[in-house]
């Protein structure tokens, strides 16, 4: 009988290095309050956002991906020749094909790495980490570059009061590879398309093409309902990720939720009963909501500013349009890119 040879599994994976770049323009609340008839005070009170970072006109999504990816590879110490998969979570790659991942892989000298984009909005990075973990442990990949990146300023409407004022641009990246010890806990993930209307594009590209609605499609959300879903439905998902990793909430050193809204972050901290001294990522205050990029960017900041250190146990959870969500407990890498 003929028997197929299969890949040799590896016991464990972990995040080896993190990188991140934010849009270079610092956009204040006063800069954007006019068209939505709002104020710095109202925006800060509702969202915790003081500034959001947006890309310069000549900086593309791919440029940010390349820069963040390069930083993560350098921080990981992995030989680029040994990175064989690139996964890129984004909803703002404005070309249907080819994938952004393939182009970024080539720019980084990673060709012929397998490369593909995933569309899971704000959960994109955690989806990618879950896939990278599975690919490495199955022996399908040696090292995976996971990127979460958005140029949200391409899909905002300055007069929209529901979501546009939250959004920023950036790219965050992580290299995932084999480990002697467990470094990425089980991914708890899912979706619910029956709630797709909660966060969506105003109208399709076809409507735009056909001239039925010639305004540029942008994003909208049902803010209060999204808040309720994100807070009260996602806290149990986070708890399941902790449990799946064989831990208790008090074992979590660092909490890195998607940077959607400071109010959601605060409420989740309360619901999860984390330790009083838990380090909570609050990058949203300066960076804004960067969708798929927000978790790796928040991680990058915590490590760079020495608020968190390598080896600490971090709970990360992404959630957003789809609706889609993913959570996992990870061991933070030792190094971050040093400028």
């Amino acid at each position: 009988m003929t028997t197929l040879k299969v890949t040799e599994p590896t016991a464990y994976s972990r995040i080896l290095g993190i990188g991140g770049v934010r849009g270079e323009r610092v956009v204040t609340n006063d800069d954007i309050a006019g068209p939505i008839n709002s104020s710095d005070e109202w925006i800060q009170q509702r969202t915790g956002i003081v500034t959001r970072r947006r890309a310069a006109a000549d900086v593309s999504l791919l440029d940010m991906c390349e820069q963040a990816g390069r930083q993560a590879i350098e921080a990981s110490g992995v030989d680029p020749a040994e990175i064989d998969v690139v996964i890129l979570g984004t909803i703002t790659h404005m070309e249907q094909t080819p994938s952004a991942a393939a182009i970024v892989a080539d720019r980084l000298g990673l060709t012929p790495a397998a490369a593909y984009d995933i569309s899971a909005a704000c959960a994109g990075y955690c989806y990618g980490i879950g896939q990278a973990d599975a690919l490495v442990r199955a022996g399908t990949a040696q090292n995976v570059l996971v990127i979460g990146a958005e140029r949200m300023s391409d899909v905002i409407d300055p007069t929209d009061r529901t979501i546009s004022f939250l959004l920023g641009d950036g790219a965050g990246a992580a290299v995932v590879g084999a480990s002697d010890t467990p470094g990425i806990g089980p991914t708890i993930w899912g979706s619910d398309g029956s709630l797709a209307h909660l966060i969506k594009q105003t109208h399709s590209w076809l409507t735009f093409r056909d001239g039925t609605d010639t305004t540029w499609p942008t994003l909208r959300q049902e803010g209060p309902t999204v808040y309720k879903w994100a807070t009260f439905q996602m806290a149990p998902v986070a708890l399941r990720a902790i449990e799946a990793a064989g831990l208790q909430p008090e074992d979590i050193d660092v909490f890195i939720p998607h940077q959607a809204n400071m109010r959601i972050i605060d409420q989740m901290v309360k619901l999860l009963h984390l330790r009083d001294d838990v380090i909570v990522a609050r990058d949203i205050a300066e960076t804004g909501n960067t969708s798929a990029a927000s978790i790796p960017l928040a991680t990058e900041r915590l490590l760079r500013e020495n608020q968190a250190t390598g080896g600490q146990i971090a709970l990360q959870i992404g959630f957003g349009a789809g609706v889609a969500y993913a959570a996992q407990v990870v061991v933070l890498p030792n190094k971050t890119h040093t400028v």
Partner: protein
Amino acid sequence: MALSATEILEGLAEIVSEETGLPVESVKAESTFAEDLDIDSLSMMTIMTYAEERFNVRIPDEEATSLSTVQDAVSFIEKAQEA
């Protein structure tokens, strides 16, 4: 067993107090959520979620946003209990 309007008011006042930091006594039936208690739409969602749990009723989001006074919420919960 269904709770009385007074019991619902007491329970709701505790939830509001927890969310806003206001003393329980300052939450009165005639208080308006937005003006008197300074509760915005996100806090309203939090309060209604806890109220759903505490009183074992369902308060749809669109209902939550249309409840103007604490008494409106008490009346809605009282009716929802009977459903």
